[in-house]
Protein backbone atom coordinates (compact mmCIF):
# COMPACT_ATOMS: atom_id res chain seq x y z
CA UNK A 1 0.00 0.00 0.00
CA UNK A 2 1.17 3.48 -0.76
CA UNK A 3 0.11 6.99 -1.65
CA UNK A 4 -0.22 5.79 -5.26
CA UNK A 5 -3.35 3.87 -4.22
CA UNK A 6 -4.95 7.15 -3.25
CA UNK A 7 -4.06 8.90 -6.50
CA UNK A 8 -5.36 5.95 -8.52
CA UNK A 9 -8.73 6.01 -6.80
CA UNK A 10 -9.39 9.73 -6.74
CA UNK A 11 -12.76 10.53 -8.32
CA UNK A 12 -13.11 6.97 -9.48
CA UNK A 13 -15.41 4.15 -8.43
CA UNK A 14 -14.43 1.03 -10.34
CA UNK A 15 -17.00 -1.69 -9.77
CA UNK A 16 -18.43 -4.89 -11.15
CA UNK A 17 -21.32 -4.82 -8.70
CA UNK A 18 -23.57 -2.35 -10.38
CA UNK A 19 -24.58 1.11 -11.35
CA UNK A 20 -27.72 3.18 -11.58
CA UNK A 21 -28.10 4.93 -14.90
CA UNK A 22 -30.74 7.18 -13.39
CA UNK A 23 -33.82 7.58 -15.57
CA UNK A 24 -32.68 4.72 -17.81
CA UNK A 25 -31.70 1.43 -16.20
CA UNK A 26 -29.97 -0.23 -13.27
CA UNK A 27 -27.29 -2.92 -13.46
CA UNK A 28 -27.03 -5.38 -10.57
CA UNK A 29 -24.08 -7.76 -10.71
CA UNK A 30 -24.06 -7.83 -14.49
CA UNK A 31 -27.83 -8.10 -14.94
CA UNK A 32 -30.55 -5.56 -15.58
CA UNK A 33 -32.35 -5.20 -12.26
CA UNK A 34 -35.77 -4.41 -13.66
CA UNK A 35 -35.74 -6.64 -16.72
CA UNK A 36 -33.72 -9.70 -15.67
CA UNK A 37 -34.07 -9.81 -11.90
CA UNK A 38 -37.58 -8.45 -11.42
CA UNK A 39 -39.06 -11.87 -10.61
CA UNK A 40 -36.34 -12.83 -8.17
CA UNK A 41 -37.69 -12.88 -4.58
CA UNK A 42 -35.99 -10.23 -2.49
CA UNK A 43 -34.19 -12.70 -0.25
CA UNK A 44 -32.67 -14.38 -3.30
CA UNK A 45 -31.65 -11.03 -4.69
CA UNK A 46 -29.97 -10.27 -1.38
CA UNK A 47 -28.10 -13.60 -1.46
CA UNK A 48 -27.21 -13.05 -5.12
CA UNK A 49 -25.84 -9.63 -4.24
CA UNK A 50 -23.59 -11.15 -1.60
CA UNK A 51 -22.40 -14.25 -3.45
CA UNK A 52 -22.98 -13.58 -7.15
CA UNK A 53 -24.69 -16.98 -7.24
CA UNK A 54 -28.23 -17.96 -8.11
CA UNK A 55 -29.77 -20.59 -5.89
CA UNK A 56 -32.06 -23.54 -6.65
CA UNK A 57 -35.65 -23.48 -5.44
CA UNK A 58 -34.84 -25.68 -2.45
CA UNK A 59 -31.72 -23.72 -1.59
CA UNK A 60 -33.75 -20.52 -1.72
CA UNK A 61 -36.36 -22.09 0.57
CA UNK A 62 -33.58 -22.83 3.01
CA UNK A 63 -32.17 -19.31 2.80
CA UNK A 64 -35.62 -18.04 3.62
CA UNK A 65 -36.13 -20.58 6.40
CA UNK A 66 -33.03 -19.66 8.37
CA UNK A 67 -34.20 -16.07 8.51
CA UNK A 68 -37.83 -16.86 9.23
CA UNK A 69 -36.94 -19.43 11.89
CA UNK A 70 -35.00 -16.90 13.91
CA UNK A 71 -37.52 -14.04 13.72
CA UNK A 72 -38.85 -13.88 17.27
CA UNK A 73 -41.12 -10.89 18.00
CA UNK A 74 -40.25 -11.11 21.70
CA UNK A 75 -39.43 -7.80 23.35
CA UNK A 76 -37.42 -9.42 26.11
CA UNK A 77 -34.71 -10.45 23.62
CA UNK A 78 -31.97 -7.83 23.61
CA UNK A 79 -32.15 -6.50 20.01
CA UNK A 80 -35.94 -6.46 20.13
CA UNK A 81 -35.77 -4.71 23.49
CA UNK A 82 -33.95 -1.92 21.66
CA UNK A 83 -36.68 -1.89 18.99
CA UNK A 84 -39.35 -1.64 21.67
CA UNK A 85 -37.56 1.15 23.52
CA UNK A 86 -37.21 2.99 20.22
CA UNK A 87 -40.93 2.62 19.57
CA UNK A 88 -41.95 3.57 23.06
CA UNK A 89 -39.74 6.62 23.07
CA UNK A 90 -40.90 7.64 19.60
CA UNK A 91 -37.87 7.44 17.41
CA UNK A 92 -37.98 6.72 13.68
CA UNK A 93 -38.27 3.23 12.14
CA UNK A 94 -34.86 3.38 10.45
CA UNK A 95 -33.12 4.41 13.66
CA UNK A 96 -34.93 1.68 15.57
CA UNK A 97 -34.06 -1.01 13.06
CA UNK A 98 -30.47 0.05 12.49
CA UNK A 99 -29.70 0.14 16.21
CA UNK A 100 -31.36 -3.23 16.74
CA UNK A 101 -29.50 -4.79 13.83
CA UNK A 102 -26.18 -3.32 14.97
CA UNK A 103 -26.65 -4.99 18.34
CA UNK A 104 -26.69 -8.39 16.61
CA UNK A 105 -22.98 -8.28 15.80
CA UNK A 106 -22.64 -9.79 19.24
CA UNK A 107 -20.30 -12.22 20.93
CA UNK A 108 -22.84 -14.53 22.59
CA UNK A 109 -25.35 -14.63 19.73
CA UNK A 110 -25.59 -13.37 16.16
CA UNK A 111 -22.51 -12.26 14.26
CA UNK A 112 -19.59 -13.79 16.11
CA UNK A 113 -21.03 -17.29 16.72
CA UNK A 114 -22.42 -17.45 13.18
CA UNK A 115 -19.16 -16.47 11.54
CA UNK A 116 -17.08 -18.39 14.02
CA UNK A 117 -19.09 -21.58 13.56
CA UNK A 118 -18.89 -21.22 9.78
CA UNK A 119 -15.11 -20.96 10.01
CA UNK A 120 -14.95 -23.90 12.40
CA UNK A 121 -16.92 -26.18 10.07
CA UNK A 122 -14.71 -25.28 7.11
CA UNK A 123 -11.62 -26.12 9.16
CA UNK A 124 -13.13 -29.24 10.70
CA UNK A 125 -14.30 -30.61 7.37
CA UNK A 126 -10.85 -30.06 5.85
CA UNK A 127 -9.39 -31.95 8.81
CA UNK A 128 -11.81 -34.85 8.38
CA UNK A 129 -11.28 -34.90 4.62
CA UNK A 130 -7.59 -35.48 5.33
CA UNK A 131 -8.53 -38.48 7.46
CA UNK A 132 -8.27 -36.51 10.70
CA UNK A 133 -10.26 -37.52 13.74
CA UNK A 134 -13.30 -35.28 14.31
CA UNK A 135 -13.60 -35.87 18.05
CA UNK A 136 -9.98 -34.99 18.63
CA UNK A 137 -10.37 -31.85 16.52
CA UNK A 138 -13.49 -30.74 18.39
CA UNK A 139 -11.97 -31.29 21.80
CA UNK A 140 -8.79 -29.49 20.77
CA UNK A 141 -10.91 -26.54 19.61
CA UNK A 142 -12.63 -26.49 22.96
CA UNK A 143 -9.34 -26.76 24.82
CA UNK A 144 -7.75 -23.94 22.82
CA UNK A 145 -10.65 -21.51 22.80
CA UNK A 146 -12.87 -22.72 25.67
CA UNK A 147 -15.83 -22.49 23.28
CA UNK A 148 -16.91 -24.09 20.05
CA UNK A 149 -19.12 -21.57 18.32
CA UNK A 150 -22.60 -22.94 17.75
CA UNK A 151 -22.66 -25.12 20.85
CA UNK A 152 -24.08 -24.06 24.21
CA UNK A 153 -26.65 -21.31 24.61
CA UNK A 154 -27.14 -18.42 27.04
CA UNK A 155 -30.50 -18.33 28.86
CA UNK A 156 -31.58 -21.83 27.76
CA UNK A 157 -30.04 -25.29 27.62
CA UNK A 158 -31.63 -26.37 24.36
CA UNK A 159 -32.61 -24.67 21.12
CA UNK A 160 -36.09 -25.15 19.70
CA UNK A 161 -34.84 -24.27 16.20
CA UNK A 162 -32.67 -27.39 15.98
CA UNK A 163 -35.40 -30.02 15.37
CA UNK A 164 -37.28 -27.71 13.01
CA UNK A 165 -34.14 -27.01 11.02
CA UNK A 166 -33.17 -30.68 10.74
CA UNK A 167 -36.71 -31.54 9.65
CA UNK A 168 -36.76 -28.73 7.10
CA UNK A 169 -33.36 -29.61 5.63
CA UNK A 170 -34.17 -33.31 5.36
CA UNK A 171 -37.24 -32.51 3.23
CA UNK A 172 -35.19 -30.66 0.63
CA UNK A 173 -33.20 -31.75 -2.36
CA UNK A 174 -29.81 -30.13 -1.78
CA UNK A 175 -26.55 -30.66 -3.70
CA UNK A 176 -24.68 -31.25 -0.45
CA UNK A 177 -25.23 -31.34 3.29
CA UNK A 178 -21.67 -32.24 4.26
CA UNK A 179 -21.19 -29.29 6.62
CA UNK A 180 -24.69 -29.78 7.99
CA UNK A 181 -24.03 -33.45 8.73
CA UNK A 182 -20.70 -32.54 10.26
CA UNK A 183 -22.41 -30.01 12.55
CA UNK A 184 -24.72 -32.73 13.82
CA UNK A 185 -21.78 -35.08 14.40
CA UNK A 186 -19.99 -32.34 16.36
CA UNK A 187 -23.18 -31.87 18.35
CA UNK A 188 -23.23 -35.52 19.32
CA UNK A 189 -19.58 -35.36 20.41
CA UNK A 190 -20.06 -32.24 22.54
CA UNK A 191 -23.29 -33.57 24.04
CA UNK A 192 -21.61 -36.82 25.02
CA UNK A 193 -18.29 -35.42 26.18
CA UNK A 194 -19.18 -31.99 27.56
CA UNK A 195 -22.98 -31.95 27.89
CA UNK A 196 -23.11 -29.03 25.50
CA UNK A 197 -26.18 -28.70 23.30
CA UNK A 198 -26.21 -27.36 19.78
CA UNK A 199 -27.66 -23.96 19.15
CA UNK A 200 -29.06 -22.75 15.86
CA UNK A 201 -25.86 -20.93 14.91
CA UNK A 202 -24.21 -24.29 14.32
CA UNK A 203 -26.78 -25.58 11.85
CA UNK A 204 -27.37 -22.21 10.20
CA UNK A 205 -23.66 -21.67 9.65
CA UNK A 206 -23.22 -25.20 8.35
CA UNK A 207 -26.08 -24.56 5.93
CA UNK A 208 -24.35 -21.38 4.81
CA UNK A 209 -21.16 -23.29 4.06
CA UNK A 210 -23.10 -25.99 2.20
CA UNK A 211 -24.71 -23.25 0.11
CA UNK A 212 -21.29 -21.99 -0.91
CA UNK A 213 -21.00 -18.83 1.20
CA UNK A 214 -17.66 -17.85 2.70
CA UNK A 215 -17.77 -17.22 6.48
CA UNK A 216 -17.71 -13.45 5.92
CA UNK A 217 -20.32 -13.59 3.18
CA UNK A 218 -22.54 -15.67 5.41
CA UNK A 219 -22.02 -13.24 8.29
CA UNK A 220 -23.15 -10.48 5.93
CA UNK A 221 -26.18 -12.50 4.80
CA UNK A 222 -27.23 -13.24 8.39
CA UNK A 223 -26.91 -9.63 9.51
CA UNK A 224 -30.62 -9.13 8.84
CA UNK A 225 -31.79 -12.53 10.07
CA UNK A 226 -33.45 -11.20 13.23
CA UNK A 227 -35.10 -8.19 11.65
CA UNK A 228 -38.57 -9.66 11.12
CA UNK A 229 -38.82 -10.05 14.88
CA UNK A 230 -37.81 -6.46 15.50
CA UNK A 231 -40.37 -4.53 13.51
CA UNK A 232 -43.44 -5.91 15.34
CA UNK A 233 -41.78 -5.06 18.65
CA UNK A 234 -41.09 -1.52 17.47
CA UNK A 235 -44.58 -0.91 16.13
CA UNK A 236 -46.48 -2.35 19.08
CA UNK A 237 -44.42 -0.39 21.58
CA UNK A 238 -45.01 2.69 19.43
CA UNK A 239 -48.77 2.13 19.55
CA UNK A 240 -48.86 1.88 23.34
CA UNK A 241 -48.73 4.79 25.79
CA UNK A 242 -45.48 6.60 25.06
CA UNK A 243 -42.54 6.10 27.37
CA UNK A 244 -44.02 3.07 29.12
CA UNK A 245 -41.94 0.16 27.86
CA UNK A 246 -40.58 -1.48 31.01
CA UNK A 247 -40.22 1.65 33.16
CA UNK A 248 -37.50 1.42 35.81
CA UNK A 249 -37.96 2.73 39.31
CA UNK A 250 -34.97 4.37 40.98
CA UNK A 251 -34.69 1.54 43.47
CA UNK A 252 -34.50 -1.07 40.72
CA UNK A 253 -31.02 0.21 39.98
CA UNK A 254 -28.83 -1.55 42.52
CA UNK A 255 -25.77 0.55 43.25
CA UNK A 256 -22.62 -1.23 44.38
CA UNK A 257 -20.01 1.45 43.81
CA UNK A 258 -18.02 3.69 46.13
CA UNK A 259 -19.80 5.68 48.82
CA UNK A 260 -20.87 9.29 48.58
CA UNK A 261 -17.99 11.76 48.46
CA UNK A 262 -17.20 15.37 47.67
CA UNK A 263 -15.65 16.44 44.37
Amino acid at each position, binding site marked *: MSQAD*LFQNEDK*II*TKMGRSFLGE*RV*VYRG*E*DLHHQLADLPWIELYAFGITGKKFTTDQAKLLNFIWAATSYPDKSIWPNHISALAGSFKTSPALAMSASIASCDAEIFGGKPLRGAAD*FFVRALAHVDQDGDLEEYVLEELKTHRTVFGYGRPLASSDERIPHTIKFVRQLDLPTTKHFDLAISVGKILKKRKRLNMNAASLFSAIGMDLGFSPKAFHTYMTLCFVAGMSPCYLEADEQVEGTFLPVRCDRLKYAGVGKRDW
Partner: protein
Amino acid sequence: MKEAPSFESNIWLDEPQDDDPFTAKASYCHGYDVFAQLIQKASFSDYILMLFTGSRPSREQSKLFETLAVAMANLGPRDAAVRASMNAAVGGAPAASSLIAALAVGAGQTGGARETYFLSQCFQKFGTDQQLWIKQLLKPNSNRLREDIWDEFEHSPGFRPHGVSCAKTLQQLLKALNNCGDFSTVKWLSDQRETLEQEINAPMGHTFVSAAVFFDLGLDPHQAEMCGLLLSLPGAAVHALEAKQQGWRKFPFFGQSVELTDDPGVIAPLPIVEELNS
Protein backbone atom coordinates in the same frame (compact mmCIF):
# COMPACT_ATOMS: atom_id res chain seq x y z
CA MET B 1 -42.17 -15.06 44.38
CA LYS B 2 -39.28 -14.58 42.01
CA GLU B 3 -37.50 -11.27 42.46
CA ALA B 4 -38.09 -8.79 39.65
CA PRO B 5 -35.07 -8.12 37.42
CA SER B 6 -32.95 -5.16 38.43
CA PHE B 7 -29.98 -3.35 36.99
CA GLU B 8 -26.67 -3.33 38.85
CA SER B 9 -24.19 -0.50 38.60
CA ASN B 10 -20.93 0.53 40.20
CA ILE B 11 -21.24 3.90 38.51
CA TRP B 12 -24.67 5.37 39.10
CA LEU B 13 -27.05 5.84 42.00
CA ASP B 14 -30.48 7.45 41.74
CA GLU B 15 -32.40 8.45 44.88
CA PRO B 16 -36.15 8.69 44.24
CA GLN B 17 -38.33 11.72 44.77
CA ASP B 18 -40.61 11.31 47.78
CA ASP B 19 -43.72 11.36 45.58
CA ASP B 20 -42.41 9.57 42.48
CA PRO B 21 -40.34 6.38 42.45
CA PHE B 22 -39.56 6.86 38.75
CA THR B 23 -37.93 10.27 39.17
CA ALA B 24 -34.63 10.93 40.89
CA LYS B 25 -34.24 13.73 43.41
CA ALA B 26 -30.49 13.15 43.49
CA SER B 27 -28.10 11.32 41.21
CA TYR B 28 -24.60 10.21 42.14
CA CYS B 29 -21.85 9.27 39.73
CA HIS B 30 -19.05 7.23 41.29
CA GLY B 31 -20.19 8.72 44.60
CA TYR B 32 -20.18 12.36 43.48
CA ASP B 33 -23.47 14.26 43.63
CA VAL B 34 -24.04 15.29 40.03
CA PHE B 35 -26.52 18.12 40.50
CA ALA B 36 -25.36 19.44 43.87
CA GLN B 37 -21.65 19.45 43.04
CA LEU B 38 -20.47 18.27 39.64
CA ILE B 39 -22.46 20.69 37.51
CA GLN B 40 -20.87 23.56 39.40
CA LYS B 41 -17.39 22.24 40.03
CA ALA B 42 -16.42 19.71 37.36
CA SER B 43 -15.38 20.57 33.82
CA PHE B 44 -16.96 18.55 31.02
CA SER B 45 -13.72 16.74 30.22
CA ASP B 46 -13.04 15.94 33.90
CA TYR B 47 -16.51 14.51 34.19
CA ILE B 48 -16.14 12.36 31.06
CA LEU B 49 -12.79 11.02 32.22
CA MET B 50 -14.14 10.37 35.71
CA LEU B 51 -17.04 8.42 34.18
CA PHE B 52 -14.52 6.01 32.69
CA THR B 53 -11.95 5.84 35.47
CA GLY B 54 -14.19 6.21 38.51
CA SER B 55 -12.25 8.95 40.20
CA ARG B 56 -11.47 12.61 39.86
CA PRO B 57 -8.50 13.12 37.54
CA SER B 58 -5.34 14.93 38.60
CA ARG B 59 -4.56 18.28 37.02
CA GLU B 60 -2.06 16.61 34.69
CA GLN B 61 -4.46 13.81 33.71
CA SER B 62 -7.14 16.35 33.04
CA LYS B 63 -4.84 18.37 30.81
CA LEU B 64 -3.72 15.27 28.91
CA PHE B 65 -7.28 14.10 28.29
CA GLU B 66 -8.47 17.54 27.31
CA THR B 67 -5.61 17.99 24.86
CA LEU B 68 -6.46 14.72 23.14
CA ALA B 69 -10.18 15.51 23.23
CA VAL B 70 -9.64 18.83 21.46
CA ALA B 71 -7.46 17.14 18.84
CA MET B 72 -9.99 14.40 18.19
CA ALA B 73 -13.16 16.47 18.37
CA ASN B 74 -13.07 17.28 14.70
CA LEU B 75 -11.05 15.41 12.12
CA GLY B 76 -12.54 17.51 9.34
CA PRO B 77 -14.86 16.71 6.45
CA ARG B 78 -12.26 14.61 4.58
CA ASP B 79 -12.23 12.07 7.40
CA ALA B 80 -14.15 8.90 6.43
CA ALA B 81 -16.38 8.91 9.51
CA VAL B 82 -17.21 12.58 9.09
CA ARG B 83 -17.94 12.01 5.39
CA ALA B 84 -20.31 9.23 6.38
CA SER B 85 -22.15 11.58 8.73
CA MET B 86 -22.43 14.20 5.98
CA ASN B 87 -23.80 11.61 3.53
CA ALA B 88 -26.48 10.77 6.08
CA ALA B 89 -27.31 14.42 6.61
CA VAL B 90 -27.39 15.66 3.06
CA GLY B 91 -30.48 13.61 2.28
CA GLY B 92 -32.24 15.09 5.27
CA ALA B 93 -32.07 12.10 7.63
CA PRO B 94 -32.39 12.61 11.40
CA ALA B 95 -29.43 13.83 13.43
CA ALA B 96 -28.93 10.39 14.93
CA SER B 97 -28.51 8.91 11.45
CA SER B 98 -25.44 11.10 10.97
CA LEU B 99 -23.92 10.06 14.26
CA ILE B 100 -24.71 6.40 13.65
CA ALA B 101 -23.00 6.70 10.26
CA ALA B 102 -19.95 8.33 11.83
CA LEU B 103 -19.77 5.73 14.57
CA ALA B 104 -20.10 2.80 12.15
CA VAL B 105 -17.32 3.99 9.86
CA GLY B 106 -15.17 5.36 12.68
CA ALA B 107 -15.44 2.03 14.49
CA GLY B 108 -13.30 0.25 11.93
CA GLN B 109 -9.81 -1.15 11.79
CA THR B 110 -8.39 1.38 9.36
CA GLY B 111 -7.70 4.44 11.48
CA GLY B 112 -10.76 3.77 13.61
CA ALA B 113 -11.70 2.75 17.11
CA ARG B 114 -10.99 -0.94 16.56
CA GLU B 115 -7.43 -0.03 15.78
CA THR B 116 -7.27 1.91 19.04
CA TYR B 117 -8.64 -1.17 20.81
CA PHE B 118 -5.94 -3.39 19.31
CA LEU B 119 -3.18 -0.95 20.21
CA SER B 120 -4.51 -0.60 23.75
CA GLN B 121 -4.33 -4.36 24.09
CA CYS B 122 -0.73 -4.20 22.91
CA PHE B 123 0.12 -1.56 25.51
CA GLN B 124 -1.29 -3.87 28.16
CA LYS B 125 0.84 -6.76 26.87
CA PHE B 126 4.07 -5.05 25.82
CA GLY B 127 4.21 -1.83 27.79
CA THR B 128 7.04 0.06 26.15
CA ASP B 129 9.11 -2.93 25.01
CA GLN B 130 10.07 -1.76 21.55
CA GLN B 131 11.10 -5.15 20.17
CA LEU B 132 7.83 -6.78 21.16
CA TRP B 133 5.94 -3.88 19.63
CA ILE B 134 7.77 -4.09 16.33
CA LYS B 135 7.30 -7.84 16.12
CA GLN B 136 3.57 -7.48 16.69
CA LEU B 137 3.09 -4.49 14.40
CA LEU B 138 4.82 -6.23 11.51
CA LYS B 139 2.59 -9.28 11.98
CA PRO B 140 -0.58 -7.90 13.55
CA ASN B 141 -2.62 -11.03 12.82
CA SER B 142 -0.16 -13.47 14.35
CA ASN B 143 -2.32 -14.08 17.41
CA ARG B 144 -5.51 -14.51 15.45
CA LEU B 145 -6.43 -18.16 15.72
CA ARG B 146 -9.97 -18.15 14.35
CA GLU B 147 -12.58 -16.01 12.62
CA ASP B 148 -14.10 -12.99 14.25
CA ILE B 149 -16.61 -10.36 13.17
CA TRP B 150 -13.51 -8.23 12.56
CA ASP B 151 -11.30 -9.07 9.59
CA GLU B 152 -7.56 -9.44 9.69
CA PHE B 153 -5.57 -6.20 9.68
CA GLU B 154 -4.33 -5.24 6.24
CA HIS B 155 -1.73 -2.83 7.57
CA SER B 156 0.30 -2.27 10.71
CA PRO B 157 -2.15 -0.84 13.25
CA GLY B 158 -1.31 2.65 14.40
CA PHE B 159 0.34 3.57 11.11
CA ARG B 160 -1.10 5.13 7.97
CA PRO B 161 -0.81 2.63 5.11
CA HIS B 162 -1.08 5.31 2.42
CA GLY B 163 0.94 7.96 4.22
CA VAL B 164 4.29 9.31 3.10
CA SER B 165 5.66 11.02 6.20
CA CYS B 166 4.50 11.79 9.69
CA ALA B 167 1.90 14.53 9.59
CA LYS B 168 3.00 17.82 11.10
CA THR B 169 -0.28 17.92 13.00
CA LEU B 170 0.50 14.61 14.68
CA GLN B 171 3.92 15.88 15.70
CA GLN B 172 2.30 19.00 17.14
CA LEU B 173 -0.16 16.84 19.05
CA LEU B 174 2.59 14.64 20.49
CA LYS B 175 4.51 17.73 21.59
CA ALA B 176 1.44 19.20 23.25
CA LEU B 177 0.64 15.92 24.99
CA ASN B 178 4.20 15.70 26.29
CA ASN B 179 3.79 19.13 27.81
CA CYS B 180 0.83 17.95 29.88
CA GLY B 181 2.94 16.18 32.48
CA ASP B 182 5.08 13.17 33.12
CA PHE B 183 3.32 10.41 31.19
CA SER B 184 5.67 7.56 30.43
CA THR B 185 3.77 5.97 27.53
CA VAL B 186 3.21 9.22 25.68
CA LYS B 187 6.85 10.12 26.22
CA TRP B 188 7.99 6.71 24.95
CA LEU B 189 5.83 7.05 21.86
CA SER B 190 7.23 10.51 21.14
CA ASP B 191 10.78 9.35 21.65
CA GLN B 192 10.37 6.22 19.54
CA ARG B 193 8.12 7.58 16.80
CA GLU B 194 10.78 7.89 14.15
CA THR B 195 12.36 4.53 14.97
CA LEU B 196 8.99 2.81 14.84
CA GLU B 197 8.13 4.53 11.56
CA GLN B 198 11.38 3.33 10.05
CA GLU B 199 10.79 -0.24 11.22
CA ILE B 200 7.19 -0.32 10.01
CA ASN B 201 7.96 1.75 6.91
CA ALA B 202 4.90 3.93 7.33
CA PRO B 203 4.07 7.12 9.20
CA MET B 204 2.38 6.95 12.57
CA GLY B 205 -1.34 7.64 12.76
CA HIS B 206 -3.50 9.22 15.44
CA THR B 207 -4.84 5.90 16.77
CA PHE B 208 -1.42 5.08 18.20
CA VAL B 209 -1.31 8.42 19.97
CA SER B 210 -4.84 7.99 21.30
CA ALA B 211 -4.07 4.50 22.56
CA ALA B 212 -0.97 5.77 24.36
CA VAL B 213 -2.92 8.56 26.03
CA PHE B 214 -5.73 6.24 27.07
CA PHE B 215 -3.20 3.79 28.49
CA ASP B 216 -1.50 6.52 30.50
CA LEU B 217 -4.92 7.55 31.81
CA GLY B 218 -5.65 4.02 32.99
CA LEU B 219 -8.31 3.09 30.42
CA ASP B 220 -8.55 -0.55 29.40
CA PRO B 221 -8.90 -1.49 25.69
CA HIS B 222 -12.70 -1.56 25.79
CA GLN B 223 -12.80 1.85 27.47
CA ALA B 224 -10.24 3.20 25.00
CA GLU B 225 -12.28 2.02 22.02
CA MET B 226 -15.47 3.54 23.39
CA CYS B 227 -13.82 6.79 24.45
CA GLY B 228 -12.17 7.18 21.05
CA LEU B 229 -15.56 6.89 19.36
CA LEU B 230 -17.11 9.42 21.71
CA LEU B 231 -14.39 12.01 21.32
CA SER B 232 -14.68 12.06 17.53
CA LEU B 233 -18.41 12.78 17.40
CA PRO B 234 -18.52 16.59 17.64
CA GLY B 235 -16.91 17.06 14.22
CA ALA B 236 -19.24 14.51 12.67
CA ALA B 237 -22.14 16.44 14.13
CA VAL B 238 -21.23 19.91 12.95
CA HIS B 239 -20.17 18.86 9.46
CA ALA B 240 -23.40 16.90 9.10
CA LEU B 241 -25.32 20.02 10.01
CA GLU B 242 -23.27 22.05 7.57
CA ALA B 243 -23.86 19.58 4.74
CA LYS B 244 -27.56 19.52 5.51
CA GLN B 245 -27.73 23.28 5.54
CA GLN B 246 -25.83 23.57 2.26
CA GLY B 247 -28.13 21.04 0.63
CA TRP B 248 -27.61 18.15 -1.76
CA ARG B 249 -26.94 20.32 -4.81
CA LYS B 250 -23.71 21.58 -3.25
CA PHE B 251 -22.66 18.17 -1.96
CA PRO B 252 -20.26 16.17 -4.18
CA PHE B 253 -22.06 13.45 -6.10
CA PHE B 254 -19.91 10.83 -7.78
CA GLY B 255 -22.42 9.33 -10.20
CA GLN B 256 -20.25 10.18 -13.16
CA SER B 257 -17.21 8.64 -11.47
CA VAL B 258 -18.60 5.12 -11.57
CA GLU B 259 -16.81 2.80 -13.99
CA LEU B 260 -18.85 -0.35 -14.37
CA THR B 261 -16.78 -3.34 -15.48
CA ASP B 262 -19.68 -5.76 -15.93
CA ASP B 263 -22.34 -3.96 -17.94
CA PRO B 264 -24.85 -5.96 -20.00
CA GLY B 265 -25.91 -2.78 -21.79
CA VAL B 266 -29.50 -1.98 -22.62
CA ILE B 267 -31.43 -5.27 -22.43
CA ALA B 268 -34.78 -3.81 -23.44
CA PRO B 269 -36.42 -0.42 -23.43
CA LEU B 270 -38.34 0.93 -20.47
CA PRO B 271 -42.01 -0.06 -20.50
CA ILE B 272 -44.13 2.66 -22.09
CA VAL B 273 -46.48 3.92 -19.41
CA GLU B 274 -49.02 5.30 -21.87
CA GLU B 275 -49.43 1.86 -23.46
CA LEU B 276 -49.79 0.18 -20.08
CA ASN B 277 -52.52 2.60 -19.03
CA SER B 278 -54.45 2.57 -22.30
